[in-house]
């Protein structure tokens, strides 16, 4: 019997009971479709988290003092809070290539909030950041229009400001229109040097509702000369983040004379670690979804077995006739295996088709990202499901003795 004959016989067998075949196909297609869609959703949410984290800047270490970083008002014992407060001297030490060779750049950060006004328009900026020019590349915060302030501006405590997108558009209507204008922050006039490019949200706060000024200016005009809120450290490379973190810890511990028996008062957040953690979480999430989907694929496979068993029982007499006409064991085996595999493959193809359509839409707030290998895998598995779950009924059919099969009523 040629493959074409076998295929023809299998197709005739399947079309003999269209509704039943259709429902079995449906079972498999739901399984296959679920695998592809759920893996795509898991992958999509992983990708979304990753891109958000990358927007925050990679190779980034954020140093802060635990307990909030300064001042007597924060409830800590005064002397120790003073002792562990981050200072510009710390920034200078960390910038030293000899002391911290794996650190690429360091930027001090002081934050405050304030109300900015442009004529009659006023806007409360949640985050006014005082820093140095190194802050922008380190935190992956490019300037959209205009330009950033320079080190000269910092040295001179120049009254210049770079606005976030939201701040600029709130004050000047159009973000681009802000460049070159003057904005009043508190009682001081600032010249708008540039507007930051729009940033995707990484949390609950609008990352565009900011303003950045030279740290010296901020200290002189707004925040006073207290401790730094944070120090932002960029490692020299992706694989040197851990080294940089160790150097930072060591330097700060030495500079602030932290006793050896005390846990470090400095909190260092490592963006690579957060990224890794969230990638691991996403992978676990994807695996979980794939497992659930795989279960439904197995259920679909059991459906194939069930239907093939019914088919074999129903067509026992036909099997007897075929054997009487000279059909060999493997011919019968082949016919029923092909029927089962065909059921699975048609189901698999339908599942892939449905999945391709479904993944075009946003699902539960996640933009699904198809994993091409999941399509191949799902199709392969569906064929394997047909072969595996079809083999038992097919063997039963092939093993029937011709006389028993013929006598079957």
């Amino acid at each position, binding site marked *: *019997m*040629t493959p074409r*004959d076998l295929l023809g016989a299998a197709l*005739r067998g399947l079309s*003999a009971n269209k509704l039943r075949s259709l429902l079995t196909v449906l079972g498999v297609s739901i399984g296959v479709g679920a695998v592809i869609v759920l893996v795509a959703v898991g992958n999509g949410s992983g990708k979304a988290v990753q891109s958000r984290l990358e927007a925050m800047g990679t190779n980034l270490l954020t140093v802060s003092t635990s307990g909030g970083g300064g001042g007597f008002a924060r409830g800590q014992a005064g002397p120790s809070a003073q002792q562990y407060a981050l200072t510009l001297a710390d920034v200078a030490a960390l910038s030293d290539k000899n002391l911290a060779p794996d650190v690429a750049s360091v930027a001090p950060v002081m934050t405050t909030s304030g109300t900015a006004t442009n004529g009659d328009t006023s806007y409360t900026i949640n985050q006014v950041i005082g820093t140095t020019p190194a802050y922008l590349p380190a935190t992956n915060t490019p300037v959209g229009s205009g330009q950033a302030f320079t080190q000269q501006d910092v040295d001179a405590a120049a009254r210049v400001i770079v606005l976030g997108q939201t701040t600029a558009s709130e004050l000047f209507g159009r973000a681009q229109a802000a460049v070159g204008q003057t904005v009043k922050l508190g009682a001081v006039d600032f010249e708008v040097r540039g507007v930051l490019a729009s940033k995707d949200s990484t949390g609950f706060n609008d990352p565009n509702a900011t303003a950045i000024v030279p740290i010296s200016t901020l200290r002189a005009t707004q925040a006073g000369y207290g401790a730094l809120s944070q120090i932002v450290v960029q490692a020299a490379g992706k694989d040197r983040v851990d080294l940089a973190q160790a150097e930072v810890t060591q330097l700060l511990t030495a500079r602030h004379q932290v006793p050896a028996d005390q846990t470090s008062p400095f909190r260092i957040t490592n963006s690579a670690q957060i990224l890794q953690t969230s990638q691991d979480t996403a992978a676990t999430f994807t695996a979980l979804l794939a497992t659930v989907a795989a279960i439904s694929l197995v259920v679909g496979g059991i459906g194939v077995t069930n239907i093939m068993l019914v088919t074999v029982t129903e067509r026992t*007499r*036909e099997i*007897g*006739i*075929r*054997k*009487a*006409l*000279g*059909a*060999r*064991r*493997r*011919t019968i085996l082949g016919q029923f295996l092909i029927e089962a595999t065909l059921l699975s493959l048609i189901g698999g193809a339908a599942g892939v088709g449905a999945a391709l359509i479904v993944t075009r839409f946003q699902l539960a707030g996640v933009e699904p990202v198809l994993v091409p290998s999941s399509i191949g895998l799902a199709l392969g598995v569906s064929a394997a499901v047909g072969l595996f779950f079809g083999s038992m009924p097919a063997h039963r059919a092939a093993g029937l*003795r*011709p*006389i028993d099969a*013929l006598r079957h009523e």
Partner: protein
Amino acid sequence: MSADALIDIRDVTKTYGAGETAVHALRGVSLRVDAGDYVAVMGSSGSGKSTLMNILGCLDVPTRGEYWLDGNNVAQLSEDQQALVRGRKIGFVFQSFNLIPRTTALANVELPLTYAHLRRAERRRRATHALELVGLADRTDHRPNQLSGGQQQRVAIARALATEPRILLADEPTGNLDAQSTDEVLGMFDELNAEGRTIVVITHETEVAARARRLVRVADGRIVADEVTR
């Protein structure tokens, strides 16, 4: 009878079950059929004639005894070789026709040729020819449920003849047919035998048995009479 008989069964017994409930369908049957013979096997229900037919057709194996078919000891053949023997040497005609449902007459007749690994064109040619022989050239695309009983049996005969087997085994071939169809089928058997085909027909109707050259009577698992009638 020549030494190289087409069918030669020697002291065959067939027992179903075991112990107290054992049923002895055949209790020692020996039978030789030469090529070209036309044998009718008669017996009442339960006499063992169907069991004999199943063993002759390699559909069942004897419990004891030997079966030599065309010089081969059937008991020593593998399952696949037995399938090959059924396909190549034996054509079956059943009482209930046993056509594959939802399959055209032509496809039914082509089926044994498919199992004999013939090419598509050759299968088509031979199957069409066989259907012409039984007078159903205009019914090739009909399915079994679109054909009358007589027509179905003629398709079954065409199917049995398509592989040009040495033996035609018929089990109550006219059992489900009306008088006219019976005549047609029996006429066909006469012609086939006249062309040299060996026919073994199992029946309980004397009218059918009367057409054969030789009549074998079976009762209670034994051959009780074996006579040449024509």
